[in-house]
Protein backbone atom coordinates (compact mmCIF):
# COMPACT_ATOMS: atom_id res chain seq x y z
CA UNK A 1 0.00 0.00 0.00
CA UNK A 2 1.67 3.20 -1.14
CA UNK A 3 1.00 6.32 0.94
CA UNK A 4 -1.46 8.66 -0.72
CA UNK A 5 -0.03 11.53 -2.71
CA UNK A 6 -2.96 13.54 -1.46
CA UNK A 7 -1.09 14.18 1.81
CA UNK A 8 -1.45 17.84 2.78
CA UNK A 9 1.55 19.98 1.89
CA UNK A 10 4.23 20.07 4.53
CA UNK A 11 2.69 17.18 6.40
CA UNK A 12 5.88 15.14 6.25
CA UNK A 13 8.13 17.82 7.66
CA UNK A 14 5.85 19.58 10.07
CA UNK A 15 6.17 17.10 12.92
CA UNK A 16 9.98 16.92 12.75
CA UNK A 17 10.11 20.72 12.55
CA UNK A 18 7.87 21.11 15.61
CA UNK A 19 9.91 18.51 17.43
CA UNK A 20 13.22 20.11 16.53
CA UNK A 21 12.09 23.59 17.51
CA UNK A 22 10.44 22.36 20.71
CA UNK A 23 7.29 24.31 19.87
CA UNK A 24 4.51 24.54 22.39
CA UNK A 25 0.98 25.61 21.50
CA UNK A 26 1.57 28.90 23.30
CA UNK A 27 4.59 29.80 21.17
CA UNK A 28 4.31 32.46 18.55
CA UNK A 29 5.55 30.92 15.31
CA UNK A 30 6.35 32.56 12.00
CA UNK A 31 6.57 30.35 8.93
CA UNK A 32 8.58 31.28 5.85
CA UNK A 33 8.83 29.54 2.50
CA UNK A 34 6.87 29.06 -0.67
CA UNK A 35 4.17 27.07 1.14
CA UNK A 36 4.19 29.21 4.26
CA UNK A 37 0.45 29.81 4.31
CA UNK A 38 -0.33 26.12 3.92
CA UNK A 39 2.12 25.24 6.68
CA UNK A 40 0.57 27.89 8.89
CA UNK A 41 -2.90 26.45 8.33
CA UNK A 42 -1.55 22.98 9.08
CA UNK A 43 -0.12 24.30 12.35
CA UNK A 44 -3.49 25.88 13.16
CA UNK A 45 -5.18 22.52 12.55
CA UNK A 46 -2.76 20.98 15.05
CA UNK A 47 -3.60 23.54 17.70
CA UNK A 48 -0.75 26.01 17.19
CA UNK A 49 -3.15 28.92 16.99
CA UNK A 50 -0.48 31.59 17.25
CA UNK A 51 1.29 30.58 14.05
CA UNK A 52 1.56 33.13 11.27
CA UNK A 53 2.98 33.11 7.76
CA UNK A 54 5.26 35.72 6.31
CA UNK A 55 2.23 37.16 4.53
CA UNK A 56 0.42 38.03 7.77
CA UNK A 57 3.12 38.22 10.42
CA UNK A 58 2.90 41.95 11.00
CA UNK A 59 5.74 44.34 11.63
CA UNK A 60 9.00 43.07 13.10
CA UNK A 61 9.00 43.54 16.85
CA UNK A 62 10.89 40.50 18.13
CA UNK A 63 7.48 39.03 18.74
CA UNK A 64 8.06 35.46 17.53
CA UNK A 65 9.48 32.62 19.58
CA UNK A 66 10.08 30.32 16.62
CA UNK A 67 10.80 30.83 12.93
CA UNK A 68 10.23 27.82 10.68
CA UNK A 69 11.81 28.16 7.26
CA UNK A 70 10.86 25.55 4.67
CA UNK A 71 13.39 26.07 1.93
CA UNK A 72 13.04 22.85 -0.03
CA UNK A 73 13.34 23.11 -3.79
CA UNK A 74 14.70 26.62 -3.50
CA UNK A 75 18.17 28.04 -3.89
CA UNK A 76 20.60 28.91 -1.16
CA UNK A 77 20.88 32.46 -2.47
CA UNK A 78 17.18 33.12 -1.95
CA UNK A 79 17.45 31.52 1.50
CA UNK A 80 19.99 34.16 2.45
CA UNK A 81 17.55 36.85 1.38
CA UNK A 82 14.85 35.27 3.54
CA UNK A 83 17.20 35.02 6.53
CA UNK A 84 18.14 38.67 6.10
CA UNK A 85 14.47 39.56 6.07
CA UNK A 86 13.82 37.56 9.23
CA UNK A 87 16.95 38.64 10.98
CA UNK A 88 18.69 41.76 9.76
CA UNK A 89 20.21 44.06 12.28
Amino acid at each position, binding site marked *: *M*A*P*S*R*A*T*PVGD*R*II*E*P*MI*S*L*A*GCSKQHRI*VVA*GSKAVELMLELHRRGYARAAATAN*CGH*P*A*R*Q*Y*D*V*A*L*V*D*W*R*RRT*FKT*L*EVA*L*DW*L*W*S*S
Partner: protein
Amino acid sequence: MAVEFLSPAGVLVVWVDPQKASANETLRLSLEGRGFLVEEGTVHECGCAVLARRREMTPVRKAAYGLPVGERRIMETKPPIPRAILVGVQVAGVDDVTHAASIEELGLLVKTLGYEVVGTISQKRDEIDGSTVLGKGRLEELAAITGGDGGRRIDGDTTEIEGPRAFRGCRRQEADRQAS
Protein backbone atom coordinates in the same frame (compact mmCIF):
# COMPACT_ATOMS: atom_id res chain seq x y z
CA MET B 1 17.82 50.08 13.51
CA ALA B 2 17.36 46.39 14.09
CA VAL B 3 14.60 44.75 12.09
CA GLU B 4 13.90 41.44 13.75
CA PHE B 5 10.96 39.11 14.02
CA LEU B 6 12.51 36.66 16.48
CA SER B 7 12.63 37.30 20.19
CA PRO B 8 16.09 37.19 21.79
CA ALA B 9 15.42 33.65 22.99
CA GLY B 10 13.76 32.64 19.73
CA VAL B 11 14.83 29.66 17.67
CA LEU B 12 15.22 29.36 13.94
CA VAL B 13 14.61 26.09 12.10
CA VAL B 14 15.64 25.86 8.46
CA TRP B 15 14.56 22.87 6.40
CA VAL B 16 16.36 22.24 3.12
CA ASP B 17 16.55 19.49 0.55
CA PRO B 18 18.98 16.62 1.09
CA GLN B 19 22.37 18.04 0.26
CA LYS B 20 26.07 17.39 0.45
CA ALA B 21 28.03 17.97 3.64
CA SER B 22 29.72 20.98 2.05
CA ALA B 23 26.33 22.62 1.48
CA ASN B 24 25.38 22.00 5.12
CA GLU B 25 28.62 23.67 6.12
CA THR B 26 27.75 26.65 3.92
CA LEU B 27 24.38 26.92 5.63
CA ARG B 28 26.00 26.75 9.05
CA LEU B 29 28.48 29.49 8.15
CA SER B 30 25.67 31.63 6.74
CA LEU B 31 23.70 31.32 9.96
CA GLU B 32 26.75 32.00 12.08
CA GLY B 33 27.46 35.07 9.98
CA ARG B 34 24.04 36.33 11.04
CA GLY B 35 24.74 35.83 14.69
CA PHE B 36 23.28 32.36 15.11
CA LEU B 37 24.78 29.19 16.47
CA VAL B 38 23.60 25.88 15.05
CA GLU B 39 22.64 23.73 18.02
CA GLU B 40 21.02 20.70 16.46
CA GLY B 41 20.61 19.03 13.14
CA THR B 42 18.21 16.42 11.91
CA VAL B 43 18.23 14.18 8.87
CA HIS B 44 14.91 13.11 7.43
CA GLU B 45 13.83 11.18 4.38
CA CYS B 46 12.77 14.38 2.64
CA GLY B 47 15.58 16.68 3.64
CA CYS B 48 17.55 17.94 6.56
CA ALA B 49 17.05 20.69 9.06
CA VAL B 50 19.07 22.72 11.50
CA LEU B 51 18.05 24.48 14.66
CA ALA B 52 19.87 27.71 15.41
CA ARG B 53 19.73 30.21 18.23
CA ARG B 54 21.26 33.62 18.75
CA ARG B 55 24.93 33.44 19.60
CA GLU B 56 24.58 35.86 22.46
CA MET B 57 22.35 33.36 24.22
CA THR B 58 25.05 32.28 26.62
CA PRO B 59 24.41 29.34 28.99
CA VAL B 60 23.51 31.79 31.75
CA ARG B 61 21.00 33.61 29.55
CA LYS B 62 19.60 30.29 28.31
CA ALA B 63 19.03 29.22 31.89
CA ALA B 64 17.30 32.54 32.56
CA TYR B 65 14.88 31.82 29.70
CA GLY B 66 14.38 28.25 30.92
CA LEU B 67 16.12 26.79 27.88
CA PRO B 68 18.19 23.59 27.97
CA VAL B 69 21.90 24.25 28.39
CA GLY B 70 23.90 21.64 26.56
CA GLU B 71 26.37 20.83 23.87
CA ARG B 72 25.59 20.89 20.19
CA ARG B 73 24.24 17.51 19.16
CA ILE B 74 22.95 15.72 16.12
CA MET B 75 19.50 14.17 16.34
CA GLU B 76 18.24 11.47 14.03
CA THR B 77 14.49 11.27 13.65
CA LYS B 78 12.46 8.37 12.36
CA PRO B 79 10.07 8.97 9.48
CA PRO B 80 6.52 9.54 10.72
CA ILE B 81 4.24 6.52 10.90
CA PRO B 82 1.94 6.55 7.86
CA ARG B 83 -1.72 6.90 8.73
CA ALA B 84 -4.64 5.02 7.26
CA ILE B 85 -8.38 5.39 7.19
CA LEU B 86 -10.33 2.17 6.92
CA VAL B 87 -13.02 2.16 4.26
CA GLY B 88 -15.72 -0.48 4.33
CA VAL B 89 -18.70 -1.08 2.07
CA GLN B 90 -21.49 -3.22 3.48
CA VAL B 91 -23.18 -4.75 0.48
CA ALA B 92 -26.57 -6.44 0.48
CA GLY B 93 -26.52 -9.83 2.18
CA VAL B 94 -23.81 -8.90 4.71
CA ASP B 95 -25.15 -8.34 8.22
CA ASP B 96 -23.87 -5.69 10.61
CA VAL B 97 -21.94 -8.11 12.81
CA THR B 98 -20.07 -9.64 9.87
CA HIS B 99 -19.31 -6.22 8.46
CA ALA B 100 -17.97 -4.98 11.79
CA ALA B 101 -15.78 -8.07 12.09
CA SER B 102 -14.38 -7.48 8.61
CA ILE B 103 -13.54 -3.89 9.46
CA GLU B 104 -11.86 -5.00 12.65
CA GLU B 105 -9.82 -7.59 10.77
CA LEU B 106 -8.87 -5.00 8.16
CA GLY B 107 -7.66 -2.72 10.94
CA LEU B 108 -5.39 -5.45 12.28
CA LEU B 109 -3.99 -6.18 8.82
CA VAL B 110 -3.33 -2.50 8.14
CA LYS B 111 -1.62 -2.17 11.50
CA THR B 112 0.55 -5.17 10.62
CA LEU B 113 1.59 -3.34 7.47
CA GLY B 114 2.94 -0.54 9.65
CA TYR B 115 0.13 1.98 9.40
CA GLU B 116 -1.65 3.78 12.19
CA VAL B 117 -5.43 3.56 11.82
CA VAL B 118 -6.84 7.03 12.43
CA GLY B 119 -10.41 6.59 11.26
CA THR B 120 -13.05 4.42 9.67
CA ILE B 121 -15.61 5.19 7.02
CA SER B 122 -18.34 2.70 6.32
CA GLN B 123 -21.22 2.73 3.89
CA LYS B 124 -24.12 0.47 3.03
CA ARG B 125 -24.53 0.01 -0.72
CA ASP B 126 -26.35 -2.40 -2.96
CA GLU B 127 -23.14 -3.11 -4.84
CA ILE B 128 -19.56 -1.87 -5.07
CA ASP B 129 -19.17 0.85 -7.65
CA GLY B 130 -16.38 -0.16 -10.00
CA SER B 131 -14.72 3.24 -10.22
CA THR B 132 -14.83 4.87 -6.80
CA VAL B 133 -16.11 2.12 -4.45
CA LEU B 134 -17.80 4.70 -2.24
CA GLY B 135 -20.65 7.02 -3.03
CA LYS B 136 -20.14 10.72 -3.73
CA GLY B 137 -21.00 11.86 -0.21
CA ARG B 138 -18.69 9.42 1.51
CA LEU B 139 -15.90 10.25 -0.95
CA GLU B 140 -16.23 13.91 -0.06
CA GLU B 141 -16.20 13.02 3.63
CA LEU B 142 -13.03 11.01 3.09
CA ALA B 143 -11.47 13.81 1.06
CA ALA B 144 -12.21 16.27 3.85
CA ILE B 145 -10.14 14.10 6.20
CA THR B 146 -7.28 13.21 3.87
CA GLY B 147 -7.01 16.46 1.97
CA GLY B 148 -7.68 14.52 -1.23
CA ASP B 149 -9.87 15.52 -4.12
CA GLY B 150 -12.90 13.39 -3.41
CA GLY B 151 -12.14 10.87 -6.12
CA ARG B 152 -12.29 13.29 -9.00
CA ARG B 153 -8.81 12.09 -10.00
CA ILE B 154 -9.19 8.41 -10.75
CA ASP B 155 -5.60 7.41 -11.42
CA GLY B 156 -4.97 4.99 -8.61
CA ASP B 157 -2.99 7.50 -6.52
CA THR B 158 -5.58 8.38 -3.97
CA THR B 159 -6.13 6.67 -0.67
CA GLU B 160 -9.69 6.05 -1.68
CA ILE B 161 -8.53 3.85 -4.53
CA GLU B 162 -5.53 2.29 -2.83
CA GLY B 163 -7.40 1.07 0.21
CA PRO B 164 -9.55 -1.70 -1.26
CA ARG B 165 -6.76 -2.88 -3.53
CA ALA B 166 -4.37 -3.21 -0.60
CA PHE B 167 -7.10 -4.91 1.41
CA ARG B 168 -7.47 -7.58 -1.23
CA GLY B 169 -3.68 -8.00 -1.14
CA CYS B 170 -3.79 -8.40 2.63
CA ARG B 171 -6.48 -11.03 2.37
CA ARG B 172 -4.35 -12.96 -0.09
CA GLN B 173 -1.31 -12.70 2.18
CA GLU B 174 -3.39 -13.87 5.12
CA ALA B 175 -4.73 -16.83 3.15
CA ASP B 176 -1.21 -17.76 2.04
CA ARG B 177 0.03 -17.54 5.60
CA GLN B 178 -2.73 -19.77 6.88
CA ALA B 179 -2.16 -22.30 4.10
CA SER B 180 1.57 -22.57 4.81
